[in-house]
Every structure is written in C-alpha cells, then in structure tokens.
C-alpha cells in the first residue's frame, strides 16, 4: 500500500464517520479534535473503521499518532510496513 492509498483510505473513513466534512477541506495538519471537531466517539468510530479496512488495530495510547492526516499516514505506513 502506498502512502497515497493510505491517505485515500484514511480520508474515506474520516468522511464516512463525519459525513459533514468534505475530504477536499481536510488539511494535512488539521487536528481531528481541535480543528475538525471530532469528539471521542467519532475518533473511536474512525479507529474501528481503520481496523476493519486496513487490519491495523490502533491501541488507545497511539491515538495521538493519528491526530492529523499527515501523522496518521506516517503511523499507518509504519504499522502496515
């Protein structure tokens, strides 16, 4: 999986958890909670969707490593690699 694939997958699941967010509006350094206003339920739903889609089980102590799109791509690439 390339980083572009991971980015696309992350955005797809993000916009499915938060249907009112447009993928085109998500900046690489936007914080999921502070900038995009996801709450803890949204984050858990995102982590659940990523687990189902990519097979990566993100433990709670790693949530900070997916707090932005850019960080998440790096983290998921590392876990998938």
């Amino acid at each position, binding site marked *: 999986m390339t980083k572009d694939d991971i980015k696309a997958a992350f955005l797809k699941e993000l916009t499915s958890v938060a249907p*009112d967010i447009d993928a085109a509006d998500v900046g690489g350094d936007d914080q999921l909670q502070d900038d995009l206003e996801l709450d803890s339920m949204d984050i858990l739903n995102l982590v659940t969707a990523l687990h189902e889609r990519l097979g990566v089980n993100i433990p709670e102590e790693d949530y900070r490593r997916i707090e932005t799109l850019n960080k998440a791509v790096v983290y998921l690439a590392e876990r998938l690699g």
Partner: protein
Amino acid sequence: MGVFKMPSLGADMEEGKLVEWLVGPGDTVKRGDVVAVVETQKGAIEIEIFEDGVVDRIDAALGTSLPVGAPLAVIRGDGEAAAPAMAPEPESVPAAQLVKPIPAPPPVAAEAGETPASPAARARAAELGVDLSGVTGSGPGGAIVLADVESAGKGRRKPAKQGLDMDAMRAAIAAAMTRSKHEIPHYYLEHEIDLQAADDWLRARNADCAPGDRILMGTLFVKATALAAANVKGMNGQYVDGAFQPSKPVNAGVAVALRGGGLIAPAIMDAASQPLDQLMASMRDLVARARSGRLRGSEMTDGTITISSLGENGVDGMTAVIYPPQVAIVAFGTPRPAPRVVDGAVTARMCVHVTLAADHRVSDGRRGAKFLKEIDTLLQNPEDL
C-alpha cells in the same frame, strides 16, 4: 378509524415539513413502526405510529409544511372495513402513484420570478446551503445557473446535516432554553469525583479489545447517572401540566454537539438496564444517527433526564440548563489528573467535575446531593456498572 397527525417533537415545535412516506395505502402498520420522515428545526426526524392497523389513505403531500396536529393519514383498525369511497386496491395503483421518497423542493422562493434560477441551480443551492437571493446570475435574463451557485458556494462546508438550517436550530435552542430559565427554578450542585478506579479499569479493559469492542468513559457516566436516577427520587421524569410525573425507566438524553454549531439531546431508552457494552452500542448508534442519519420522534420526546459530557479535550465543568419538560441535567467536565488528598496525603488522581442542575419544584439540595453522591459511589466500582 384513526387519524395519524403531525406529532409534536418537542415543546417548541410548531410545524414540520413532511419529506418522506415509508408506507402507502394498504400497508399494515404496527405501533412503534416508523412511517414517515418530518423535517424539523432539529433536522430530519423519523416519526412513529401509535396504533396497529392498515393505512387507509395518505392525506398529506410531500414537501408541505404542516402544523402540529394536522392530519397526515387515516389508519384503519384491524378488521375494520375500508372507508367506502377510499377502498384501497393496492394492485390497481399505478406504480407512479405510489408514494416514493422524493426529495423536498428546495426551500427557495420561486414566486413572481423573484430570483430566476435553473432547477439544477436551485437543487445545488439547497444542497450547499447557498441563499440564491445573494447570487448574481450569469444566465439568460440574469437567471442563476449551476455554475453561479458552484462559485458562490466554493469552499463552503456542507451543511452539518441534510436539510439542517442552523439559524432555525439556534432559534429552537434559544426558545427551549428561554422557556426553561423562565419556568424552572433551577438549583445547582457541584462535586468532584475521583475517577482513578474507573480510568484504570477502563484502560485495562480497552487494552485487550479490538476497537469495535472498546467503551468510552462517557458510557460509564451515562450508566452511573441512569442507575443513580433510578435510585434517587425526584430526578427522573417529566414535569407536565403542573405536576411531576416520575418515570420508572430512565430514558437518558445524551447531548450531542453538532459540528458547525447546534446541539441535540436524543434519549437512550431504559439506559439503566442496559449492560455497558450494549449501552455503548446504543450510544454509537445514537451519535451516528444524530450526525448523519435520522433520529426518531420518541427519542426526541421521551427523555427523562439529560447527561452532557464535555469530552476529552474540553474544560473542567459546565452549569447546564434543564431541557424541559425534564427536571434534571448532569454535566460531566473533562476528566484530568488533579491533586487530591487520599489517606492524608496529597496525590495526583484522575478526577472529573460534575455539576447537577435540578428543578426546585420537584426536589431540593439534599436530594440532589444524594443523587450526585450516588453517581460518585457507582463510579468507584466500574466493574459493577
């Protein structure tokens, strides 16, 4: 023969717009079935029917705004003969006549050529929430065409929810809260709860779970509050027609903040009797439907107490306003480590600040204190929740 009417989906609802029929003439319906979708100030709400029978005829057309109490359909009781002139013959109804989910017409004035615009432009404007009166048309005779709407709506975030009008929602919240502050003599109690036991237990539990099986601290808050509300009198119920009507089941309203502003507090029915994992699933479902899908009429009207949780990145606490006709609301701040005296020594413990707002017509401070203490006690033994 019963008349199915536009229900009141909250104290301040005056009218609703019918946007979808899920049944047609001849269909059998049971009490509790969702039969239609109504757009309100709080978004699209699925409305349920309150009797068993067969749909005799549909009286209300899609896209029309109707006052509370307006007849929507006629329901024939089981075994009752069809109304003579309206004998439904489902087989003979041409397919095109069957009521289908048709998107409501865009809420844009079309009369008198006030704002000439193409149908595609109108539809897109409604989708983007663009007000056509503020758009300059580049089409024939200055008519607004699709491209004009696209450029006017550029960079605009999609509306928080399909069909949700933020100004209308703000007005609905303002009306409900004004009524609450006007009618309900609020009193407030504050308490800090040592959350270390609950936090440790939850971390250990979630560490062994796939994400789909994890539970949020917010679920523990809802469960503990629901159990306490079932045990302590005067907190759980509705104040209707000058009297408090206590409720046996605890229908826990959960405040859900919507992106872009606005708040909904739909209820989880009988929350006190749901095991934690089931309650978590109920909350996931409720939040998902509050965000994107649909809430049910009963979820909007049958709440008996509300819980507002400020989440992980919020502030210490909030003094909330009771959601009428309920008589209590409990607000949990963001849990954070705080210095606390344990066995005579100061130590860092995970803590949460809880604030109760309750109705003096029904209870007073002593009762409220008992209620908050009960929540505290329950949270000390999270494995028993």
